[in-house]
């Protein structure tokens, strides 16, 4: 009997690896093609390079995607590892484009700029004034794509394949449309919010007086909590500042919460996470005003701007023109590490995780008094599983470990103690420019190259909410270990024969 010509499905890790490579090729290739076309509006100097590189990547991506045979069963760990691989590869591809176009002269500068772009960390070593429109679009585009990827990680990939399954918004009870009934619908629904959000902020900036192209780039950086700017005096105008404050607040809000508000699932008062997020802004601004010496409306607006940039982890730069108390940088570091709402493009440990930790702390105290009591923790209206709570505790542990490890590395490479801690927190929270203790902004260009390179892993870990990156690292180590075992077995066999 003939065996037929059907192709065998690929193994889970092979298929997910191929998908991740293909996705990153398509994403960066698509961005490069668009940037090449945009560059035509300007001088068009980078157009040939961008179009050639972009189309090459797209073709390679499509060819690879077409070759993959869907595996029978995709393992969650493989998907998490593939997510990390996709992000890393995208960073490398963007860095290659920076080098090819001459936007960055050195590979480490290109890598740093690409990483801060994709991970939406607002630390830049390139001067946007000397870049053409195409490259500026690509630069903002990397942040926009990174923000979308962060949403996918937070709303789809982690709840479906990692931790916090109970928080995946998939329930159709009550006749409501959930945001994430399945993976593909979730992606579509997120895009339905993300794209209009970008357009809304674009219009806002345009109405505030920005030129259409600059407004678009700024909107892309705002909605993604990226924080790249086009010029040092980007936010000189008060109305632009107000649009940025609202945009940053929107970008740091949970897409799940926004979806619930849009489809009418619960009123504003029932969105505890959003209320806490708003409360953080208000409390942060009040404390900052208390600890500084400025007064007047300008001071209030600038303080709100700084707080919104910190809480949403956007990191748009804003100098503090007035007195700056010793507690102010500590407060901002705290706000940055708490971060935005879960299910947003913002970074940090995120508000839901902090709520869980606080409730866990209270439960632990209650358990000290009643050791045998069964005490559940409720989050977002649902009982959080013990496994999820465990994972949140470990996430906190890993977050601190990444911050500490990064601070140690950059300290070895020459930063002082407070700058090391601050840079590590900002990188892990993907929050952008580091502030010195007097409130002034630190230019990452003044750091040594090893310091900048040492910050990159923390940005990737932070952008992926740590777990996928750690799982990828563990998979890599396991792979290396299994290879080593194979060699050992081979050696043992050869040795046995010789004997």
């Amino acid at each position: 009997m003939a065996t037929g010509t059907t192709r065998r499905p690929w193994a889970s890790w092979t298929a997910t690896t191929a998908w991740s490579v293909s996705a990153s090729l398509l994403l960066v290739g698509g961005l490069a093609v668009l940037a090449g076309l945009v560059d035509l509006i300007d001088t068009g100097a980078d157009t040939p390079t961008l179009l050639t590189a972009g189309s090459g990547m797209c073709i390679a991506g499509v060819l690879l995607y077409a070759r993959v045979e869907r595996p029978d069963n995709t393992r969650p760990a493989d998907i998490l590892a593939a997510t990390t691989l996709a992000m890393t590869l995208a960073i490398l591809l963007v860095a290659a484009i920076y080098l090819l176009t001459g936007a960055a002269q050195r590979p480490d500068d290109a890598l740093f700029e690409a990483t801060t772009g994709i991970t939406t960390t607002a630390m830049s070593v390139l001067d946007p004034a000397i870049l053409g429109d195409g490259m500026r679009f690509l630069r903002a585009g990397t942040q926009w794509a990174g923000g979308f990827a962060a949403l996918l990680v937070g709303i789809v990939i982690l709840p479906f394949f990692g931790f916090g399954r109970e928080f995946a918004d998939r329930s159709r009870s009550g006749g409501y449309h959930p945001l994430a009934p399945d993976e593909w619908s979730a992606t579509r629904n997120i895009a339905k919010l993300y794209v209009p959000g970008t357009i809304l902020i674009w219009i806002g900036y345009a109405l505030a007086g920005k030129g259409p192209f600059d407004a678009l780039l700024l909107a892309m950086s705002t909605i993604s909590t990226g924080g790249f700017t086009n010029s040092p005096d980007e936010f000189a105008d008060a109305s632009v500042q107000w649009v940025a404050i609202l945009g940053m607040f929107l970008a740091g809000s949970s897409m799940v919460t926004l979806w619930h508000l849009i489809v009418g699932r619960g009123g504003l008062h029932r969105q505890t996470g959003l209320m806490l997020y708003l409360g953080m802004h208000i409390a942060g601004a009040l404390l900052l005003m208390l600890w500084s010496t400025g007064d007047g409306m300008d001071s209030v607006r600038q303080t709100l701007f700084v707080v919104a940039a910190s809480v949403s982890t956007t990191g748009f730069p804003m100098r503090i023109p007035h007195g700056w108390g010793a507690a102010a940088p500590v407060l901002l570091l705290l706000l940055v590490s708490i971060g935005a709402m879960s299910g947003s493009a913002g970074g940090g440990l995120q508000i839901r995780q902090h709520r869980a930790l606080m409730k866990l702390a209270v439960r632990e105290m209650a358990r000290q008094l009643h050791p045998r009591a069964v005490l559940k923790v409720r989050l977002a209206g649902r009982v959080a599983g013990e496994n999820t709570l465990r994972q949140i505790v470990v996430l906190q542990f890993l977050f601190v470990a990444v911050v500490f490890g990064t601070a140690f590395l950059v300290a070895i490479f020459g930063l002082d103690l407070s700058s090391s801690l601050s840079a590590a927190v900002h990188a892990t929270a993907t929050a952008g420019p580091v502030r010195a203790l007097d409130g002034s902004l630190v230019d990452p260009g003044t750091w040594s190259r090893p310091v900048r390179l040492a910050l990159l892993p923390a940005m990737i870990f932070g952008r992926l909410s740590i777990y996928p990156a750690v799982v990828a690292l563990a998979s890599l180590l396991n792979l290396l270990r299994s290879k080593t075992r194979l060699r050992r077995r081979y050696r043992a066999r050869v040795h046995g024969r010789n004997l």
Partner: protein
Amino acid sequence: MSRPRPRWTTTTGHVTGIALLFVAAGMFASAIIEAASGTDGQAMILASVLTALPGVTLWLWTRPGSLDRATVFTAVAGTWLVVSAFGALPYLLAGTFQRGEIGPLEVLADAIFESVSGFSCTGSTVFGSHNLIADQGPGILIYRQFTQWIGGMGIVLLVVTVLPALRASGLGLIGAEAPGEGGDRLAPRMAQTARRFWYVYVGLTALITTALLAAGMTPFDAVAHAFTTASTGGFSTRDSSIGYWDSVAVEMVIMIGLLMGGANFTLHSRSISSRRPVHMKDAEFRSYIWLLTGATLVVTVLLMDDGMGMTRALRSAAFNVVTLGTSGGFGNATGPGSNGDFVRWAAGPQLVLLLLLVSGGCTGSTSGGVKVMRLTVGISHARRTLRSIRHPRAVLPVRHGSGTLAEPLVERIAGFMVVYGMLVVSGTLVVAALGTDLVTALGGVIGSLGNMGPALNKAGPTASFVDGFTAPARTVLALLMLIGRLELFPMLLMLVTPYRALQDGVRSPHS
């Protein structure tokens, strides 16, 4: 026939009363030393009388009752608070912290800070260039050392040795005060267990005294430093701490003493009873030694990279790693900017020291910090969680050494870490809001919670806490020292019993 005197049933009051008597006895002994060659003898005798009076009253007019967990926390935390408050009397009456430019409230805050730092074995001090240790009489100095010695093993543990009436409740009291996860029984009766711990402690102190004498200290300094080495406290009778002697032999004795003090006393006791060392069979002790060795090597390499000679780097690194890793808090800096002054080191080695400020020594030791066992369990827990993501259906236990830990214990440790993290973050914010920079505030809070002693930046080994922190900030730090010494929960939950009593009183005012 005379009727028996009516006694109020309150374990908190009874335990506090006896604890005050012990402290008064220590004050009196110090007062005799002060009277012999100092100027504050009378003030210290008055302080001991003022401490003994409420102690005797409480001892005679109260009796211990049964204890639920909330009452245990109230009893232990209450005892520590009262003892720390009365412990400040000698400083106040002798005018130790009286300076021309500060008001009475700040003097009170300084006295309480020094007392809390003593009893909690933290070793942070408000003495400094403005108020030299060298200017103090021997009585005050030895009293300061004594507060650390009595606090090292635990005031309540001392009380339990003379209070057999507590029976099973003694275990709860010891557990609430003991560093780490619960207390080990060394003998069938709790009072016997407590006594055995004290025998080991006294023996260790005697051993360190002898070694310090042999290393060249005077008898007074040797006893004084043995008190604060066995207790991993860190107070010294000299302004430049151990740096005053600039002696390798003295530093070696102190380091070995601190290592012993930072190890589990159950291991010491078992080693003595079995006449062979059992320390290396204990997983936590092995991790403790590995951690300190690794940290010493890393810091040595980084200091050498920074231009320090190998011998100097190794000496400075080993001493400071051991003294901070065991929560000792001594300094071997001979002056600001010298090799041992770690706040002048590069940021890399300082970050290693910051990690050690968190870790502390072993459970069941006199040291502070999170404890090595909790850290290793935390790492094991993290590894298990990561493996569970890769293998969602696998049943994965958390291992510690060769054993498997029960899930409630793992959850308890995780809960502890969460509460600890929150206290560090909120404490840093509060201390910074009271006028301290980020690094000093963070170092001060971690150091206080872990009962470590010196902090970073402005509160380093050659500085006074007066230089780094305002008076309100120092008061916050003192509170954190007590919270840390009692392993967080007793202090945080000490008001539950009074609150319940108040609620009952409101509900049934006539009963």
